[in-house]
């Protein structure tokens, strides 16, 4: 988080971030969402303590059981407790969600900043490469990566990050373009500030707000994308539980063992919902036009 000194230099009120924090805290719905998310993260983190069942071991007599007190989410065709698999699966799914978006943000932020700030040749080169990625059939590349490197979580993360690059870079470039022409940036340049300095200290903080929204949306998008990749057989290595793979596998049992797909599906929806609410609240909090 940039220091107050930087914020001051940008010509904005010192208390911008304090104000944002205050606004966020006053948003009850968002606070509740954050609380739920933390609770969920704790349950996932301490899954071995929360659930008595082994998420990957077979249990022949207890297979295909409907939800009950012993197995709140039921069991699957190998007799594995679905709640345990959802909890353990959260580790992988959330990791895929956050890491892939994190990777995409780390790579696309400088690309978008450079393209938007310098324009000209740099802009052209970067954006044409992004066009190339967009024009490239994602599916072929995903299958290509998996065939070449095998199906595992790292590949899934890289694949999702790679395809998020154009969207993220375009967005950051767009925001940079608009901020570049704002008075305070023009003023800073007039005072002789260097390009790097302007980019990091003046434009980057302005990009931060929309980036947070994009990230929360992106994380949910990545979790859903992971589910779609599993449908095509490109997921994490079984028997490791993962929400998307559980959902994809469960579609075959929709009519007979509905609980196999419904519980992981509901979990994904819940996480996406919470992330969206938090993202919205953060955006509102960072927007100086929205009063607390």
């Amino acid at each position: 988080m940039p220091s107050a000194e930087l914020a001051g230099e940008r010509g904005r009120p010192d208390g911008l971030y304090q104000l944002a924090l205050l606004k966020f805290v006053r948003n009850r719905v968002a606070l509740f969402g954050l609380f739920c998310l933390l609770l969920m993260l704790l349950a996932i983190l301490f899954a071995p303590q929360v659930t008595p069942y082994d998420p990957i071991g077979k249990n022949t007599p207890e297979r295909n059981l409907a939800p009950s007190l012993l197995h709140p989410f039921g069991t699957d065709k190998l007799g594995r407790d679905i709640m345990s698999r959802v909890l353990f699966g959260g580790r992988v799914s959330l990791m895929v969600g956050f890491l892939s978006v994190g990777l995409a943000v780390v790579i696309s932020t400088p690309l978008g900043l450079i393209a938007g700030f310098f324009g000209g040749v740099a802009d052209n080169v970067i954006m044409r490469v992004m066009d190339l990625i967009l024009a490239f059939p994602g599916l072929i590349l995903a299958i290509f990566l998996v065939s070449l490197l095998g199906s595992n979580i790292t590949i899934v993360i890289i694949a999702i990050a790679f395809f998020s690059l154009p969207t993220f870079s375009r967005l950051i470039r767009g925001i940079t373009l608009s901020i570049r022409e704002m008075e305070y940036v023009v003023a800073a340049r007039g005072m002789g500030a260097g390009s790097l300095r302007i980019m990091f200290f003046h434009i980057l903080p302005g990009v931060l707000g929309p980036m947070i929204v994009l990230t929360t949306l992106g994380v949910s998008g990545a979790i859903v994308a992971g589910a779609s990749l599993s449908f095509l057989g490109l997921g994490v290595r079984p028997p490791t539980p993962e929400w998307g793979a559980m959902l994809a596998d469960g579609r075959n049992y929709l009519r007979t063992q509905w609980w196999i797909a419904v519980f992981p599906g509901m979990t994904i929806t819940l996480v996406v919902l919470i992330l969206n609410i938090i993202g919205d609240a953060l955006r509102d909090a960072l927007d100086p036009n929205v009063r607390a």
Partner: protein
Amino acid sequence: MYRLRNAVLLLLMIALAMMSGAALAQDDIMAGKGGRLVVADANSNTSFDPFVSSWHSWPHYALYPTLFSRALDMSYVGYLADSWEVSEDSKSLTIHLIEGATFTDGSPIDAEALRWNLEKYADPESTASTGRALITLLDNIEVMGDYSFTMHMNSPHAPLFFVLAGLEIVSPTAYEAIGPDDFGTNPVGGGPFILKELVTDNYALFERNPDFTWAPPELYDHPGPVFLDELQILFIGEEQTVLAALETGEISLAGIPTQNLAGAEANPDIDVHVAKLSQIRYVGFNTSKDPWTNPDLRRAFAYATDRQEFVTLAWDDLADPLYQPLPPTIWGHNPDLNAIAPSFDPDKASAMLDELGYVDVDGDGLREDPDGESWTVPLATASPDEWLRQAEVLEAQWRAVGIPLQIDVLEFSALIDLTTTGEHDLFLLLYGYQDPSILTYFFDPERKGGSNRAWFSTDELTDLLVAADSQLDPDLRYEAVTAVSEYIIEASPWVYLAVPPALTGVRAELMGWSIHPDTSFLYWNAYFEVE
């Protein structure tokens, strides 16, 4: 029998020519029967040119007749062949064809046409997988008359009738007129149906061949063409979609996923037929790579595998456990061999692994390799759900005896490619066939880098395989095949897992159908009642 067939045919033709009562009788039989049979196929069409590709789907035989067919007792009966003789040395086969059969372009199905077809299959440049055996086998073909010819072979070949029953016969005149480029989309055969419309990757629509009267009587309960007006094959892969379309009647015939069997059986609109496929599921070891060169290690894996539990967990109890390379659905399977095959014995598996030095050093429940280093056993498998489920069951079973299995999910083409490199470890695969000669393809020293995916061969096994494939006497061949199976069980290049089920759902409105013991759908006598 076959002479009789000719006589019937001749009579029928005379009758038809005279436009007399026989034509009326034919109309009577056909009256009120017809309709369109719609089936789903998960693999979309390939070329209909049998010399280019082999479409592994039964409707292919709707277009083309074959020399032989298999009766319901699995014996070979004549189709285009009326009668035949095998020479003393088993190296020549003389075939007399039925007379009067024609291709749909009007040209006769005669000895010259058959010679043209067989020689084309025997061409080393042929890319089809059916009939490939003829390339090395066929020496020459001697045409003896308009409707008889003799095939001279380089050696006796036990699966000859099996091979010939699979060869689709095309019209040579049409093939040469249309050319190899376009024959695949404008095929001309002489089977029960004619291609009416092909929309690639979408559907193929066939209409009844009105002249078709030469189906083998063993499989055909009425003379004259088939009852069905049309046969349509839809190319849809998603099994739940296919099931839904069967329930709404958009499709008349479809495979039922194991977990949906009970639901389909309870549905009054659907008749369900349950059988076993002539396929197996197995795990192969790359026996050319350490440590899988050691047969004791491979056997330990077989002892660690609980096939009974495997079919319960992976196949909802609908598959049969398997302990030898040939399933009961392929001729040559010998049930007595199950007694000598490794069956589930976790203590023995553990003891064998201990002996070989695979011991759990760090106490995490998983064994380390003989050097005490961390051990992983990579199992390559395809990505569709069926394969993942089986791999997961194996992983759980083998982990119970401390084997640290790592499931590598590959796309199917990449999996096949991997097995040809010789750098793989374990692989989970299937085969489906109708003849025990299949084992030659999997354990042939010449096919390492091809279909010998276990990279396993010994001189002794090769001799046994040659003996089995060249023995024409059924009883002696059965013994020879048993010897092959016994040797393979002992050497354990594979762990045999299961014989999967064939669950066929058919709309109740469809009458007269039956399912062949080879699990193909007999549609020749099938019909819908029409106005």
